[in-house]
């Protein structure tokens, strides 16, 4: 069996492990061999977890030896964004303030992946505390896009996206607060999904904005995305906002096609300023594909979605400034060595431990919540959030799913937006509304522009993951994305 992970799906891997064509141990080595060949140029990982991966592989291989039934992701190499706690690793959030932070418990989503037989290969680089859209805001240096090493992989889950895109692992988990899974998915040509808020427990995920954060997968195919969701979704007594729903098999409707599906193209997003003409035309071409597949394609406006970015850059930092108050140098994290008193300890530990973007978000959030400004900023933003939810509700009366670009542009150059925070924030203009409304969305590759992947975003109402993935699978079948990053092609040759 050829162990080129860039060509193997999770299903193929599990079957090969079950039939003893390959051992889980060999898959661990195959994953690290690719990482050894590419990581120096990509920098997808903060930490490799060989010991833990080998123990997981041993468990899978002994199940095979005993002839026991294998769990659904048995032998599948996976990686986790470095804001998810995994016992035996440091969970750093790519931040100096947590550089030495040892996990003392497992994130629920991580535990569920391990219970499904997955092999944990490492912890992925990210924008510090998930603040960013390029993975440049990492205290450990940027991740490079496998499609063009001079460009960003998107962010904040850029390491996870790059690891899957480069074929280092089969599935990677990220977290999405304003687009941090879908936007890097678009920029790296991967399938990247944010489930409905509450589908996946946030226990053990270091909090950014608790009313927006959601964990989800990066994969190469829609089917693997559904399989990953099957593993990680479900109620968790440790997260009061996780939802109690009957278990669903998200792979069940993947073959149902797009015939009869009501597909709405979000018209006002396609006329938004800053949208690259090539991205626009590829999204319109995707809509044509759905029409050819027998979907009922129409147009719809989301008139308040354009205010989403502004509401988000109040709500997100407001929640973040509260959540990050816990990093005070007392119970964990960096502490200055010579504090005069406790306030001095807080103030200097935080200023030295946080990077520039974290400081910026904490400052925006603290300002927006401070006396005299709370109602004008946070109060208003919460009302805008209501209007955006109502826009979506109206759109979903007429349509089963909505199509938008995932990102206004393809991957940009490292450093290009580093000095202009506002321009960076605008990268998330199409993904943010789904977080504010709590709805699911997937980004799938829909073509190339100047050799770089373009992402199509498919959105659906709360708990419609099966329909969203059915639409994505139909599109993928009609327009397979079978190009690989030059780096991956080079390695295969």
């Amino acid at each position, binding site marked *: 069996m050829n162990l080129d992970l860039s060509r193997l799906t999770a299903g193929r891997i599990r079957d090969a492990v079950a039939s003893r064509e390959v051992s889980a141990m060999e898959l661990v080595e195959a994953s690290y061999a690719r990482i050894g060949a590419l990581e120096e140029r990509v920098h997808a990982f903060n930490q490799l977890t060989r010991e833990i991966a080998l123990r997981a592989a041993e468990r899978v291989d002994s199940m095979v030896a005993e002839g026991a039934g294998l769990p659904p992701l048995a032998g599948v190499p996976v990686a986790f964004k470095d804001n998810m706690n995994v016992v035996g690793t440091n969970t750093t959030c790519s931040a100096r303030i947590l550089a030495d*932070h*040892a996990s*003392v*418990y497992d994130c629920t989503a991580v535990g569920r992946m391990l219970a499904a037989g997955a092999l944990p290969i490492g912890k992925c680089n990210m924008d510090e505390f998930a603040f960013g859209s390029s993975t440049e805001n990492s205290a450990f240096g940027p991740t490079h896009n496998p499609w063009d090493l001079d460009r960003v992989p998107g962010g904040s889950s850029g390491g996870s996206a790059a690891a899957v895109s480069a074929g280092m692992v089969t599935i990677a988990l990220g977290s999405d607060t304003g687009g941090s899974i879908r936007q890097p998915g678009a920029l790296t040509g991967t399938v990247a999904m944010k489930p409905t*808020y*509450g589908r996946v427990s946030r226990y053990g995920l270091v909090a950014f904005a608790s*009313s927006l954060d959601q964990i989800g997968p990066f994969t190469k195919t829609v089917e693997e995305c559904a399989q990953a969701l099957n593993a990680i979704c479900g109620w968790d*007594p440790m997260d*009061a*906002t996780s*939802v109690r729903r009957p278990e669903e098999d998200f792979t069940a409707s993947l073959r149902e096609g797009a015939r009869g599906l009501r597909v709405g193209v979000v018209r006002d997003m396609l006329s938004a300023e800053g949208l690259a003409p090539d991205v626009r035309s590829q999204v319109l071409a995707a809509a044509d594909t759905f029409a050819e597949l027998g979907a009922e394609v129409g147009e719809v406006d989301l008139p*308040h979605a354009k*205010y989403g970015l*502004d*509401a988000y*850059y*109040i709500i997100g930092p407001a929640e973040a*400034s509260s959540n990050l*108050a816990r990093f*005070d140098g*007392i*119970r*964990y*994290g*960096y*502490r200055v060595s010579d504090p*005069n*008193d*406790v*306030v*001095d*300890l807080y103030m*200097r530990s*935080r*200023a030295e431990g946080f990077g520039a973007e974290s*400081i*910026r978000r*904490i*400052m*925006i959030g*603290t*300002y927006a919540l*401070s006396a005299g400004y709370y109602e*004008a*900023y946070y109060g*208003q*933003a*919460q*009302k*805008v*959030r*209501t*209007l955006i*939810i109502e826009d979506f509700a109206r759109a979903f009366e007429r349509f089963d799913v909505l199509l938008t670009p995932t990102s206004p542009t393809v991957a940009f150059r490292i450093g290009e937006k580093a000095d202009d*925070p*506002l321009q960076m*924030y605008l990268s998330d203009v199409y993904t943010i509304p789904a977080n*504010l409304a*709590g709805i699911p969305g997937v980004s799938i590759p829909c073509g190339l522009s100047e050799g770089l992947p373009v992402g199509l975003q498919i959105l659906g109402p*709360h708990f419609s993951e099966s329909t969203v993935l059915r639409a994505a699978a139909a599109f993928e079948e009609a327009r397979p994305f079978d190009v690989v990053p030059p780096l991956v092609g080079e390695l295969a040759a």
Partner: protein
Amino acid sequence: MAISEEQVRHVALLARLALTDEQVRVLAGQLSTILDHVETIQELNLAGVLPTAHALAVTNAQRPDEVVPGLSQEQALRNAPKQRDGYFVIPRIAGADGDLAV
């Protein structure tokens, strides 16, 4: 809306961040630009619109009230910057400067 350096210093104290003069200067400009942008929401008529704190209204999210093991003392102290006899060690609080300043 222009944010003054004095306002930046006040917010930094609220946020417990010891910023340098250079950081204060840069942040005053950046926060002004960002807040100018987000202020576009002020153009909306939001009278009568109810605020949303959570997109999904989950109510009465309770779990069975059963005693289960939590973190051990050792685990809880695992990442403490300084500890002694099972406690976190911190410098004195009473009379700390910032206490009086806020």
